[in-house]
């Protein structure tokens, strides 16, 4: 455990000097919190109005009967953007592990590292945690800022409660970490094969595509994200993560890391 901790701290000492990493860990979460807050702020005047009249069915599923249609629409809009919080656990780990692994390759520090009694599992775990922990922390922090901001901006506790629907809490607190684990694993595999951290990042960024598909799918009304769907997604990700972790412990032996990570 001490060795894993050593690796994690060492990664942070190195990687947080990088501007791209700082951008993704600090700026991105602030941006993700600011967008829905801006929507709430912009639409605060129309809260109690009934001007929207009948809501489309997909919007109504987000609201209980106690809300006015204006409030309902606000909840709907913000809910759309909840999915955007999921970009954080996808994007942050890929940036961190791309720089940490490719940095290790270009400075040729892998060999002395592999000469120590560290196991490859400890090494990979250290590298993964170094990317995972900031990603999860940034996601939670970003969501925390959003929650606090919306609590301050929304006078009606029923509206606030509607926004904090359990499906979003599950998404942020459970699906988020699982997603970042996927991202880390994919990023480690890609980074071990390429020499340019930006290339690795961009390849890993393709993981955002399914997320965007879900976002637009819901926006266009093809389906509604409900609690069951989020839980099913979490289960699916759990399975994917288990497979990825198994694969990387199989694929990454000392010799492979030393001679193939080029």
């Amino acid at each position: 455990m001490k060795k894993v901790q050593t690796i994690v701290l060492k990664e942070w000492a190195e990687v947080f000097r990088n501007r791209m990493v700082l951008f993704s860990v600090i700026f991105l979460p602030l941006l993700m919190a600011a967008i829905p807050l801006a929507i709430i702020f912009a639409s605060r005047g129309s809260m109690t109005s009934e001007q929207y009249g009948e809501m489309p069915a997909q919007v109504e599923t987000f609201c209980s009967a106690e809300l006015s249609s204006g409030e309902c629409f606000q909840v709907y809009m913000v809910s759309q953007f909840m999915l955007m919080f999921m970009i954080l656990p996808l994007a942050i780990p890929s940036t961190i592990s791309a720089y940490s692994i490719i940095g290790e390759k270009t400075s040729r520090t892998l060999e002395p590292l592999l000469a120590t009694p560290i196991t490859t599992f400890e090494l990979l775990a250290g590298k993964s945690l170094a990317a995972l922990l900031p990603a999860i922390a940034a996601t939670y922090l970003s969501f925390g800022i959003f929650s606090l901001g919306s609590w301050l901006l929304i006078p009606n506790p029923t509206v606030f409660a509607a926004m904090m629907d359990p499906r979003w809490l599950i998404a942020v607190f459970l699906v988020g970490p699982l997603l970042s684990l996927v991202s880390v694993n994919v990023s480690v595999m890609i980074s071990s094969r390429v020499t340019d951290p930006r290339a690795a990042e961009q390849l890993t960024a393709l993981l955002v595509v399914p997320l965007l598909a879900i976002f637009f799918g819901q926006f266009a009304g093809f389906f509604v994200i409900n609690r069951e769907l989020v839980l099913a997604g979490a289960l699916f990700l759990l399975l994917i993560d288990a497979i990825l972790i198994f694969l990387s412990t199989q694929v990454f032996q000392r010799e492979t890391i030393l001679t193939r990570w080029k």
Partner: protein
Amino acid sequence: MIQTENLTKQFGSTLAVERLTLTVEQGEVFGFLGPNGAGKTTTVRMLASLISPTQGRAIVNGFEVGKQDDQIRRSVGVLTETPGLYDNLSAEYNLRIFANLYEVRDPAGQVEKYLRMLGLWERRFEPTATFSKGMKQKLAIARALLHEPKVLFLDEPTAGLDPESARLVRDFIAELRREGRTIFLCTHNLDEADRLCDRIAVFKTRLLVVDTPERLRQRMFGRKVVFHLRNPDEIMVAKIAGLPFVSEARLVDGRLLVTLDDPESRNPEIVRQLVMDGAEIQFVGELRYSLEEVYLRLVRNDSVPADGAAFVLKNGVEKKK
């Protein structure tokens, strides 16, 4: 301390190391020489349990490569071909990382010990990116020593260093030897090997020869004594060549060059014979070949003379050291 038996490593179709069998004794500085691409680094990597042999066995420090890798890694230190430091981190932090990974009992103490020993203590908080090549190399050596390994693999420790830094590193290696550590030294610097090593292996995918530097010279060239004569002539030379213990006597650039096995006891007889024949002797000296000449001949010919056999020169022009 190190024993290998038919150790072989193949990368795809490239045979990097072929059937290497050797023994390195405890406390020995063992020089491992060979041209670029000979497979030196590959050998070190196998012996340090970094890559696995395709075939054969190796025992390092009593542990078997491929079976007790963890114990091997704990008991050996490796100076890799490139220093491989974390350039953005301080010297001290670089070492602390490795002290933790090697599970050193007193990390701070060990880090301080080696930083001081190698003269880096004053600059311990500076990022290693600001260090000179020599300082980086010293730091990398310190890193390999933190866990006080009994066996040390040094892969070209003085490559790319200026003479002064190289000297520092060499003195340090000599110091380590006095501490009784076993040192496996890969190098291209033959002079260094000559001065530091108890025994030398010349290697080019296969093991060409192993011996002490002195005996290697003798095996390759025989021992030669040069007589500077004021008045050399062919008859004198023929007489000397006729002595039973002389394997060869020739005139080269007006000097008499005699090849024989035991000059210490036989030289007086040669001198006596020369004086009897009227020779005026100005100087007598042993012709020492540099290790470089031994090495070049070995890696060019790829052939090894049988033990003790004097190698007869085909053309008589030799360089004196």
